Structures are given as structure tokens and as C-alpha cells.
């Protein structure tokens, strides 16, 4: 807890000293961090490996984009509403996907993600098809919510969402509910025979994961000012899964670090060389070979020595 507060204070003070372009990058990194952490709820705690988590992100982004474009609802509420919406949709998705387990579950989530991608590509009135939604405003509102529309304000909004979600997710995994999830991860048959309806637990955790993932997407839409089908494409699902693995699954903090690492390294490399992808790819391969349990695993081993 002390660590959490210290990091929060540090992040809250950063806008005082950082140039604007660094703030933009940092905001994007925090959004990605929230997205990766949301996936870790499923992957790390219930071993529900989703290949279609972009669905949550895209749902949140398009929902938030439409709310901001077509209503007067102020930014922070629009973001929250989009996150909740994504979580509600996830109940249906999870109900179908949890019919299967293991690799088949992953494939079903991939199919769902791509189905949404295909729909978004053609549903022009809602998604703007291949052009996407452009010019998404940061709608101002009463009670000082106008502040969140500024660059610094938006950073604080993102930070609040990330920390709120982190505390929520940590409470979930530390609760009895979280213990059942770990039971499912280690031995689902045994958990089932202890009398837990594991499928309901799985549906619940997928819904939570989608809600937080949707929240991340909902932040991205007004952050970038646009939403397009890239946000639903399987490539993003693959990337976020890799951020989770790079950071270390089942730790919540790890994926946050993984996402920040991913974005910052990518950014830094691309300023040095056009061929950043070459180095980036090599980093992944070396990572797997030499740091199999992620950044958090590395930190833990350090501490053990």
C-alpha cells in the first residue's frame, strides 16, 4: 500500500516537470497499462488466455466516441459509461466463450474479436467504417469537469482511472472470489468438485476484465480524438497479451510495467532508428530465452538472492 501511494504521488507530481510531448507519451503509456492490467485479471488469475482482448478496447473506444460526439455528457462520465457498457457486453461474450476451455477458449475470443472488427468495418453509421470516428471532443461539463479536457487534466483522469482500477482489481484478486479464480487456474476440475460453479466465476472475471479494458479504450478515444478499426484488430490483442507476459502474469503490477516498457522502448527506439522493429523483435526473443517469467519474475529473483 505504501508503495502504491508513493508511485501515485510521484506520477501526480510529474506534470510539473515534464515537457508536453512527454506528457502525451506518458498518458498513452498509462492507458496501455490499464489495458494490459485488465487482461491480466483473466490471464494471470483464471488462466483464461484471451486472443481477442482488443474487443474490449474497441468497444470502449467506439462507445465513448459516440457518447462524446452525439450527447452533452461530460468526459469523465462518458468514459465510465463506456467501460460499464463494455463489461455488460462481455457477459454475453463470456457466456459463449466459456463453453470451451484451453486453446479453444482462446480461439473463441479471437473469433469474437474479429467478428466485432468485421462488423465495425461495415457499420458506417456507428463506427464510421474504415474512416473511423474523427474529431471526438472532450466534452466539458459542470462541477469543474472541464479541467479534464486539458492536457494535464486528461493525464490526471487517466491516472485516476488506472489507480482506481488497480485498487479494484487488487481487491478482487485478494478476496475469496479471487481465491476461487486461482483455484480455477490451478485445477478447475477440483474447484468444480468443491462445489463452486466455475463457469459463473469465469464469466464474472471476463466481465470485469472487459470493463477495465473498455475503460482503457474509452480513455483512448478522447485522448487521440479518433477511433478506428485498428483498435479492434487482432494485432492489438496480440500486443497487449505480450505486454502482460513481458511484465509477468498474475501480478497486476507486472503488466503495467510491461505496457510502459513496451511503449517507451518502442518510442525511444523509433527516435534512434527507422528499423526499431528489428531491435524490438530481437528484444522479445531474447526476453523469452533469458527472462522467462517477465519483469516481475526478474525482480523477485533479484530479491531472493
Amino acid at each position, binding site marked *: 500500500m505504501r508503495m502504491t501511494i508513493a508511485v501515485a504521488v510521484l506520477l501526480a507530481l510529474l506534470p510539473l516537470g515534464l515537457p508536453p510531448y512527454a506528457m502525451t507519451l506518458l498518458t498513452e503509456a498509462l492507458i496501455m497499462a490499464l489495458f494490459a492490467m485488465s487482461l491480466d485479471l483473466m490471464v494471470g488469475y483464471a488462466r483464461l*488466455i484471451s486472443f481477442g482482448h482488443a474487443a474490449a478496447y474497441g468497444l470502449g473506444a467506439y462507445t465513448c466516441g459516440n457518447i462524446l460526439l452525439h450527447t452533452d455528457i461530460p468526459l469523465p462520465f462518458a468514459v465510465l459509461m463506456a467501460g460499464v457498457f463494455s463489461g455488460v457486453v462481455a457477459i454475453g461474450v463470456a457466456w*459463449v466463450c466459456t*463453453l*470451451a*476451455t*484451453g*486453446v*479453444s477458449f482462446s*480461439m*473463441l475470443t*479471437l*473469433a*469474437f474479436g*474479429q*467478428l466485432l472488427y*468485421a*462488423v465495425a*468495418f*461495415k457499420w458506417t453509421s456507428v463506427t464510421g467504417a474504415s474512416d473511423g470516428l474523427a474529431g471526438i471532443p472532450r466534452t466539458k461539463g459542470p462541477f469543474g469537469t472541464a479541467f479534464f479536457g486539458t492536457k494535464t487534466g486528461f493525464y490526471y483522469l487517466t491516472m485516476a482511472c488506472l489507480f482506481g482500477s488497480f485498487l479494484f482489481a487488487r481487491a478482487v484478486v485478494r478476496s475469496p472470489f479471487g481465491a476461487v479464480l486461482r483455484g480455477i487456474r490451478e485445477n478447475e476440475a477440483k474447484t468444480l468438485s468443491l462445489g463452486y460453479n466455475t463457469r459463473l466465476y469465469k464469466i464474472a472475471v471476463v466481465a470485469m476484465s472487459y470493463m477495465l479494458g473498455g475503460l482503457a479504450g474509452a480513455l483512448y478515444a478522447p485522448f487521440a480524438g479518433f477511433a478506428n478499426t485498428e483498435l479492434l*484488430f*487482432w*494485432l492489438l490483442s*496480440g500486443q497487449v*497479451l*505480450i505486454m502482460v*507476459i*513481458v511484465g509477468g*502474469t498474475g501480478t497486476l503490477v507486472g503488466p503495467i510495467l510491461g505496457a510502459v516498457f513496451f511503449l517507451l522502448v518502442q518510442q525511444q527506439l523509433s527516435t534512434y532508428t527507422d*528499423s*526499431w*522493429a*528489428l531491435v*524490438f*523483435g*530481437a*528484444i*522479445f*526473443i531474447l*526476453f*523469452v*530465452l533469458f527472462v*522467462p517469467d517477465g519483469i516481475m519474475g526478474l525482480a523477485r529473483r533479484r530479491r531472493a538472492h
Partner: protein
Amino acid sequence: MDFLAFLVTQCLNALSQAALLFFLGCGLTLIFGIMRIVNFAHGAFFMLGAYVGWSAVYVTGSFWGALVAAPILVGGFGAAFEMGILRRLYGRDGHSFLMVTFGLTLMMGEAIRLIWGVAALQVVMPQSLSGIVFILDEPFPIYRLFLAGAGIVVAVVIWQFLERTRLGLLIRATSQNAEMVHALGTDVRLVRSAVFGIGCGLAGIGGVFAAPMVTASLGMAPNAVIDTFVIVIIGGMGSFLGSMIGALLVAFVQVFGSYYFPDFALAFMYLIMLTILVVRPGGLLGKEA
């Protein structure tokens, strides 16, 4: 246009499309069957095949030369990657392979950009295949006929290879029980390298076949890999026959779907995949995962 002619030409169209998908899907499914890994870099090998094909045509002046050179070079590269990197990772969980093959995809994409540049490269098809023929008075490109034929030939060759040759036997045995094959005195590691090489080589030859129609470009990989996934998942991961059925199903849905209901063709493909997975979680011919 009379309906019969329309039906025949569209079916031939779908067959040629299925042939392309099959080159990719069959390799992916073979690799999964033996190693239990999902090769995310499969689309990158397909793309590499197209570019190597372009260079081979440039150097030898012959499309047929490209058809020989690309699978050998791409397959060789795949086998080398298996021996150098993947081999160290067996026994780890699926995460590792996801990351390694994803990393490889990034590196290959960038390496291709550095070597061949960003412009799309047009592979010229050989004179003898570039014309059209009339089927029931309907014009139809010869190249697509050739592609459909090539698909059938390759399918038969692979099928016979798996059924009739010693290596084919070892591959089937290894996919059922690798430990036992190893205990009986076969170096399973070599079988794995061979299968990975063959799978990548098939993707490479698919790239050469595709190049004259779609040009070799950097956008090839992500789209190819997702189509490949769909057919392999529909057919059942690890099933050779399944990948054939999946390729045919997807190709027919794509061709007829984009004619009759162009707005829903793409969504329809994923809907079919979802339905099949819900009914049979392992795919049509796959084992329950």
C-alpha cells in the same frame, strides 16, 4: 450471363482461393500437430515467400525458378529458426512461443522492408499463364485455373508424403506420441525441425503463388495470418484434412459471400468460425482441446 456459367466460374474462383489458403493452413496445422505451438510468424513466412519469389524471378527470369527457390530458401530459414531458437523452448508454456514468433514477425517485416523497400513489387506471371480462357463462353483468367490445379497437386503430394513415406510416418507418429517415437530411436528434434521447415516452405510457396495476383507488399502478413488461423481453427488444429476442408469452406464463403451480400461476407466468415467452435470446440476434425 447465364447462371451455369456464373456458377462454374465462381466455383473455380473459390477453388483457386482455397488453394492459396490451403498452402498456408496446411503448414500451420502440421506445425501445430507436431509441436503444439501456434506459429504467429506464418504470415511473415508467406510474405517472405512472395519477396524471395520476386527476387528469384528477377535473377533467373523465370517464374518456375521462383517456385523452386522460394520454398527451399523460406523453408530453410524456418528450419534454421527452429534449430536456433524454438528448440530451446520445448516444455515451456504457450506464452513463450507466442512471444518468440511475434518477435520474429516484427523482425522479418523490418528486414524485408530494409532489403526490398516499401514499394509493392509486382511479380510478372509467365506468358503462358497470363491470358484468359473461355469457360461456357465466360472469360476466366488462366492463372486462377493454374492456381486451383496447383492446390490440388500440392494437396495430393503432401497427403501421399504423409501416408507413404518414412518421414511422413514419423511425422504422424510424433504428433501422436513424441516420447514413444523418441524412445524407439528416432531423433524427434530432427522431425520437428523438418516439419517446421516444411510448414514454412509451404507458406513460402503460397507467397510465390499469390504474388502475381496481389503484388508483394508489407501488408500481406497480418491479413494472411488471420485467414490462416480461421481455416485451421475451423478444420481442427493439427488435422491435415481439416485444413483442406477449412480452406474450401472459407474460400467459398468469401467468393460467394462477397457477390451476394458484400456487406456481411467478412462477418459471416467469423460467425461460421464461432458457430463451429461452439458446437465442436476442437474444430471440425480436431480433437477436443
